[in-house]
């Protein structure tokens, strides 16, 4: 079992003392490691627009590599514009996953569009930075991963990795929209695709993680890390209804695999749950696990789907996760 020591919240957009475009939310953290600092990319939001709805933009903070609680720089404006009229990412780019590729930095993101019968739809886009991750330009106006016969809508939660020269994308795909008294609610599950260039993808075409909360369990954010001969996946999952509070809200699950295809789900291994009280007492989700300077860390978001910011945890055991 993993044992994490929660070290607290590292960033809350609502706590900023200076004027900022970021008003609420720091969702879907993803790190890029630089020589002197650690850049945490995430998705943040200005105040809602006149219609009461939010747009979500790519943002970052830089943390001192020697002291991850010290923020040395905050993104001053959104670093990826939203898409034009009618495009898949006209209303938001969230969640995101960032990776270095030679001289460039790539961000894979879920684009949001708004629909009439259901509130939204999503597909996965790619944007590239040629200035070491300071600004991004989308590769094309459309998505790199879109709908197919058995992935009919809501492609999202991308997590990009490269193993053995090949690109892997873990993501989620919608299964169905459930009618409710209010807005329809989606069900989505974790899937995978692979690619030689990170642009043209072959979908594996199966749900990877068995559902624990029944057929309508929603699974998100499949964050994969390779260590000690195995692939380890931390992800989030929730009920499809009543998920906005503690009872049905997001929790962090865990699965492992030796081949990236067959996964054993063992949530009790994850070792990461809600706190007694405080900013992550109702839900924990969107885990991102990374290794840095002989330590393994997890970034995650807490209550209200990350409205209140990002927290950090440090791995205490097993000890073989600590670099020698």
């Amino acid at each position, binding site marked *: 079992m993993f044992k994490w020591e929660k070290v607290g919240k590292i960033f809350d957009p609502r706590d900023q003392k200076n004027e900022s475009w970021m008003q609420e939310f720091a969702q879907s953290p993803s790190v890029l490691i630089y020589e002197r600092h650690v850049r945490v990319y995430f998705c943040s939001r200005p105040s809602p627009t006149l219609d009461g709805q939010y747009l979500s933009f790519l943002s970052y903070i830089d943390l001192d590599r020697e002291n991850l609680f010290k923020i040395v720089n905050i993104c001053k404006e959104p670093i990826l514009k939203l898409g034009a009229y009618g495009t898949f990412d006209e209303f938001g780019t969230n969640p995101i996953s960032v990776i270095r590729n030679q001289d460039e930095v790539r961000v894979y993101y879920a684009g949001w569009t708004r629909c009439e019968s259901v509130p939204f739809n999503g597909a996965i886009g790619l944007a590239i930075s040629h200035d070491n991750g300071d600004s991004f330009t989308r590769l094309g106006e*459309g998505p790199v991963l879109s709908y197919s*016969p058995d992935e009919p809508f809501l492609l999202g939660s991308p997590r990009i990795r490269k193993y053995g020269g090949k690109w892997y994308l873990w993501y989620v795909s919608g299964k169905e929209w459930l009618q409710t008294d209010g807005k329809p609610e989606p069900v989505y599950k974790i899937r995978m695709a692979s690619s030689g260039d990170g642009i043209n993808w072959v979908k594996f075409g199966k749900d990877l993680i068995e559902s624990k909360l029944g057929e309508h369990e929603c699974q998100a954010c499949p964050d994969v890390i390779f260590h000690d001969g195995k692939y380890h996946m931390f992800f989030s999952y929730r009920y499809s209804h009543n998920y906005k509070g503690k009872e049905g809200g997001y929790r962090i699950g865990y699965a492992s695999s030796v081949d990236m295809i067959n996964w054993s789900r063992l949530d009790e291994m994850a070792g990461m749950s809600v706190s007694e009280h405080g900013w992550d007492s109702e839900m924990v989700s969107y885990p991102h696990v990374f290794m840095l300077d002989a330590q393994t860390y997890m970034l995650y978001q807490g209550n209200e789907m990350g409205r209140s910011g990002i927290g950090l945890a440090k791995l205490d055991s097993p000890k073989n996760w600590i670099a020698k």
Partner: protein
Amino acid sequence: MKWSKLGKKFDPREYALPNNCGEFAQSPQALVISDRVRVYFSTREKDSVGKYISRIAFVDFDKIMQNIIGISNHTVIELGKLGCFDEHGIFPINVVRDRNRVLAYTTGWNRKVSVSADASIGLAISHDDGLTFQKQGKGPILSASLNEPFLIGDAYVALHGGLYHMWYIYGTKWKKFVESDPPDRIYKIAHATSEDGLNWHRDGRQIIADRLNADECQALPTVFHRDGKYHMYFCYRQAHGFRKQSNNAYRIGYAYSNDLINWERDDSKAGIDVSEDGWDSEMQCYPHTFQLDGKVYMLYNGNEFGRFGFGLAVLQE
């Protein structure tokens, strides 16, 4: 090329159509069966909020294309469920005989908020000579991609040399011509190939040159082989003001090719144009060509995008 017009052949107002459909018989497309020619089209019902939903129906003609001998009184293909790409309509449908089955390439519509709708191409298969179709999955087989960001539709599929070819359209932009109006869509014709009719490789380029301007809309390609050449008919229009002003409305365009790759556009050789007066005097759109007993026919719509039916022409020898 020179076409003889055979007049309007079908008016949806004269028949009882299933699913509360009354007006519109758009984008007629033919399936030749042993004793009849089945012509599929998209008709419309109004939903609870007063918006249109397109649905597929068909009418059967005898083999000289003169008499109507049947009409669909059932749901030919179901619309998609909540949130699916084809929840708000199917328009058009392209049917292709493939050994002992009939493939249907549908354009499914889903309504959006900032723009009116998006479209993707789905596949359904019939094992009863096109009476009913079963969808292959809830999602589309061809949808938005990196350089084709939206509005993927109007598939026309044919087998040439053992390979499936698809001509289709993709959106390039939504553009506001008048600040107070909703944005208008712009779309172009492209080409893809497939070994199984399901998985497609796109060429990723516009294959028919613009004639009006860069904002020209091109739609509904249809291709046939004759006298050593491939002939494509399609329709095209201005991006704005195309509903009411006949000058801006759909016309039928023409291009030819020797290799299915490079197309030479020459609308002056189309050999068909709007009539002086009557049902196809203001616009002509959604051409579909098919061969029957040595003749080449063209089904097409006239004024008001086919609200009052479709007509037929035959290629002169």
